[in-house]
């Protein structure tokens, strides 16, 4: 009877919605109940974007996350906006390449992942989102790590299949941290 709520937030274009979609499909492939809810409207275009994913063993009530179990913050404004909403005992996974700040709360676990730098080093600068998502998979229990390839294949269009390997590598980097 577990449920995990994950809030991913960052600038538009950082792949917040894609990462959320991956987690949603991950849940689907492992038989979970789930919801995926994006922020929408003008803020998608260059402003802040966020995406709420709930993975659960029981039917999802409200898809709106007010107190996330896990916050993935990809920029400083997102961290500042949501840091206090994380449930006590929850987790924050942040991109420490882009966020030069420490989280003051001591009732949560914080993982400083230099995702943007790691992505650059690995040669796929745009996949910091999936490195962070790899770390998410490491830190949550509701879905297992296995089957990422099948999950990616299930929603990445065939003409973009070339991206799957890179995404898998990025997930792996995050997972092994």
């Amino acid at each position: 009877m577990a449920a995990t709520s994950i809030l991913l937030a960052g600038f538009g274009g950082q792949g917040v919605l894609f990462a959320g979609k991956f987690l949603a499909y991950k849940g689907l492939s492992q038989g979970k109940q789930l919801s995926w809810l994006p922020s929408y409207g003008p803020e998608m275009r260059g402003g802040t974007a966020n995406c709420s994913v709930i993975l659960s063993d029981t039917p999802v009530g409200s898809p709106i996350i007010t107190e996330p179990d896990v916050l993935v913050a990809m920029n400083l404004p997102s961290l500042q906006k949501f840091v206090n909403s994380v449930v006590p005992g929850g987790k924050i996974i942040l991109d420490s390449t882009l966020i030069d700040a420490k989280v003051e709360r001591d009732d949560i676990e914080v993982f400083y992942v230099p995702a943007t730098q790691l992505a650059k080093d690995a040669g796929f600068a745009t996949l910091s989102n999936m490195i962070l998502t790899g770390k998410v998979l490491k830190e949550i229990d509701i879905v297992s790590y296995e089957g990422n390839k099948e999950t990616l294949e299930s929603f990445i269009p065939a003409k973009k299949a070339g991206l799957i390997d890179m995404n898998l590598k990025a997930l792996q980097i995050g997972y092994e941290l």
Partner: protein
Amino acid sequence: MAELVLMKGNEAIAEAAIRAGCRHYFGYPITPQTEIAAYMAKKMPKIGGVFLQAESEVASINMVYGAAATGCRVMTSSSSPGISLKAEGLSYIAGSDVPALVVNVQRGGPGLGGIQPSQSDYFQATKGGGHGDYRMIVLAPASVQEMASLTIKGFNLADKYRMTSMILADGTIGQMMEPISFEDAEIEKYEKPWALTGHENKRKHNIVNSLYLQPDALEKTNFERYERYKVVEENEPMWEEYMMEDAEICVVAFGIASRVAKNAVVAARAEGIKVGLIRPITLWPFPTKALRAAAVKCKAFVSVELNMGQMIEDVRLATECKRPVTLCNRAGGMIPSPDQVLESIRAAQKGE
């Protein structure tokens, strides 16, 4: 069980419409429902259907009117300000007794309002919106699965009763993704002898019309139409009851508000409060019987809405003001938190 797929609520409506046999879509872009149009634009040409972006909401609903008059399954979709523009056509469609499906993925109002989710078109959908005496069947999905199933149901009911079915959704349900399975759509077929098909010199000409210059004739059509509405009110109310068996407090909420309310009901139960939820699935016909029955055993009602308090009036009417009904609401695109609803439940429990 058919295979589960992930889909946005808006896309689920479009796919379900196609499965229900709809091959004609006329619309005009507006946030937050544009995925419906985009889906139709992509799919319709491949299956011999028609997607047409009209010059305005006014034109699109009148295209729907014309298409509906031929007996085709036809739909349009929009969001709040666009529905106001469609009100003209909705009235003509009602006055001409042709079936159509109209989707309103609501956003905050009045005026241009905002683009965030809202339920502030409840009055417009259930009490009229356009001019004249008429009703629409108003279906309020609370999940992506229901976006699909109620779309199919909506087409069937529209054909059955020769009226408009409106899907009254909101930006959240439209934009969110959930697993959904498309069972084989149950397409009910109804004879449409009134349809404009060309008489082929085999019958008298059909006339689709809402003009009656003789008041007694107009009165007669209105009375007849309301006889039909009575049958709808008798046979078609749909609702869900959640933890109502021993409930002393009854929360009433539809659409996205009902999802939030469910979380609050679970939390309140954990505190020992005997609370349940009645979720109207049809807003018209309103599930009056369910509310009336609840008023016998529940001591208070809480109406949870994303507006300034619209459905609450129907809750009071249905319960015949026998019990106090309080409002728990946010407006303008804001959504109440489960905590806010929980607070309202606690207050109702204390008799506040």
